[in-house]
């Protein structure tokens, strides 16, 4: 229709990436967990939650930030601090900073709720009579959506363009597109992209109010799937046009459903358009893709619409799976977690299966993997869809 897509992009090298989720800290922990078929989801106590559900909690990170960053202390920034410490990411970012200059490195971070858990804690301690929140509560460094981007830039000592993207569950996929635009505009020479979302009662009780939170473990594509398990995660990637890298961002596609605030278009038209836009951006056709990491939340509506969209774009044979049975739905971090898994699939020649899927829903025609595969994987697509009908598909490929 409008805008005759001129945005054919040059492959953008990803010189470093890292991911931390319920599967563990760092890329190798994820590779091992995916091969050993061990879900990170558990039935465990979180905060004062009383809802029956499975959670994807990250282990061993919830410690106060160092004194020089104590103003930023909250669960979300603690998770970012812990994740940045994996895979030598801080050192890789520092080398990039030394090469281009601190003000030439952009920071683009996705989150859905940022540090809202800090606000939950502050409301618990509020002075009801005086209608006053406790003195320790700092909105700008915790609750505010931007705080996570500001914190990451502070932690890595970079001062180029920075922003937070918050489009619900597509947030940290869209950061790749925003970073590529900023680099092409000349606003920065390289970019740190990422996503961070941490467990909080707002999302647990919120998804429960919409009857989307499962009491069972998340079972993507299962005939009896009945909702999501919520997880927390953080991940980062360094996009450096001047680097040699094993994996490149080849394309992205961003679309809107224009259908409903909290349900996907049943025919997956927005998802179809996002996948096709990612292919067009890379100048590739559907046959170039070896594996698709699905959004695959485990709700009836998402998995059904996404399978339809897959079949429209790729037919019924292309291998695909959701990894939310492993990590849970990490919401605003899902984009970066699944981008990291998609890159890992290319580097390790591996396609993970749809974990916890007992009996595949016969109505889903897409080739959803029930067994993991070892195979050469040259290119992967990763789908991320969010409330408000916000869709983003990323296309990754091995260096040519």
């Amino acid at each position, binding site marked *: 229709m*409008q*805008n*005759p*897509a*001129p*945005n054919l992009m040059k492959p953008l090298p990803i010189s470093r990436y890292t991911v931390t989720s319920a599967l563990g800290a760092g890329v190798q922990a994820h590779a091992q967990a995916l091969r050993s078929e061990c879900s990170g989801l558990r039935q465990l106590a979180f905060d004062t939650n*009383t809802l029956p559900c499975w959670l994807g909690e990250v282990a061993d990170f919830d410690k106060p930030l160092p004194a020089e960053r104590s103003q930023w202390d909250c669960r979300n920034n603690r998770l970012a601090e812990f994740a940045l410490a994996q895979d030598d990411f801080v050192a890789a970012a520092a080398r990039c900073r030394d090469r281009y200059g601190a003000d030439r490195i952009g920071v683009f971070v996705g989150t*859905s709720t940022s540090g*809202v858990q800090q*606000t*939950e804690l502050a*409301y*618990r301690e509020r002075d009801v009579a005086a*209608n006053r*929140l406790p003195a320790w509560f700092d909105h*700008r460094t915790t*609750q*505010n*959506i*931007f705080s996570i*981007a*500001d914190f990451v830039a502070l932690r890595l000592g970079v*001062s180029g*363009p*920075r*922003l*937070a*993207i*918050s*489009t*619900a569950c597509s947030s940290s996929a*869209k950061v790749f*597109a*925003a970073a*590529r*635009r*900023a680099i*092409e*505009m*000349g*606003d920065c020479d390289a970019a740190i992209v990422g996503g961070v979302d941490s467990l909080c009662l*707002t999302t647990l*009780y*919120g*998804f*429960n*109010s919409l009857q989307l939170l499962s009491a069972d473990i998340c079972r993507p594509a299962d005939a009896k799937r009945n909702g999501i398990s919520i997880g927390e995660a953080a991940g980062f990637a360094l996009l450096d046009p001047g680097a040699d890298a094993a994996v490149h961002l080849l394309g992205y596609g*961003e*679309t*809107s459903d*224009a259908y409903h*605030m*909290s349900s996907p278009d049943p025919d997956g038209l*927005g998802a179809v*358009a996002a996948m096709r836009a990612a292919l067009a951006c890379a100048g590739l056709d559907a046959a170039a893709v070896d594996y698709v990491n699905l959004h695959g939340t485990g709700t009836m509506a998402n998995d059904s619409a996404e399978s339809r969209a897959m079949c429209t774009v790729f037919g019924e044979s292309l291998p695909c799976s959701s990894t939310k049975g492993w990590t849970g739905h990490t919401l605003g971090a899902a984009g970066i977690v699944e981008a990291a898994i998609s890159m890992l699939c290319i580097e390790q020649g591996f396609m993970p299966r749809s974990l916890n899927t007992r009996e595949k829903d016969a109505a889903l025609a897409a080739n959803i993997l029930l067994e993991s595969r070892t195979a050469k994987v040259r290119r992967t697509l990763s789908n991320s869809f*969010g*409330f*408000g*009908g*916000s869709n983003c598909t990323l296309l990754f490929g091995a260096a040519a």
Partner: protein
Amino acid sequence: MNEAGSKEIFVEAVGLAAPGFANWQSAVSVLRNERPYVATALPPHAPVLLPPNERRRASPTVRLAFQAGEDAMQSSSIAAANLATVFASSDADLNIIHRICTALTVTPRMISPTDFHNSVHNAAAGYWSIAVGARAPSSTISAHDYSFAVGLAEACGCVVIDGCDTLLVAFDLPPPEPLYQKRPIAQPVAVALVLSRLSTANTLAGLRYRRVRASPSTMSTPDLETVRLANPAGRGLPLLELLAQRRDGEVVLPVGENAGLAVRLRMV
């Protein structure tokens, strides 16, 4: 980026909603200093583009964003369905965060499902795409007090790099107490710009930007400076002042501490 700055794109239309500024058309004479600024409260807005179901569910924050967006569409020759969107807001809806965090302190914990789906930062973007049937790309960003200019740069990238004509809507609403003490956004303000790749018969000005280390431009009167500082979206007012005065020139809009976007306008 070269010395001249980014590639030139075009300002197709403007929308505004703020105390004393019910719409762009009536704001022009004030911003030209032909009429004094009078800070009359902004009346609640009933979005005309929303279907009845969505209109019922839309929060005051979404309505504010629509007020500026719909105002810009009044004078845009590019249909809303054909525009990508960038929504820029520091905090989107702290009224909902207040209600949810309050509900979480009470037993049993009952969160309204409508509140939860409206709590996402991109709620206004979602309602907008439904209202106008836009399947184009849409992003929603936050950069605290710098949200306007950071959103503007992202919108320029969508136009120049992705080739999408783009609607930018920057908006924030004052939060309720007790959050107001922690985030004193004093006035509701929303600013919208339609930015296009090619000039049209409607084009107001050519626009390009550079990144600079400089302090932000201020407004010519204390009243208008108050509006600029009262809300993250208000930080865009110096640009609107140039547009209203039909003057070529450059204004610096803040994107960080001592970091600005020097936005240059060329009237056409």
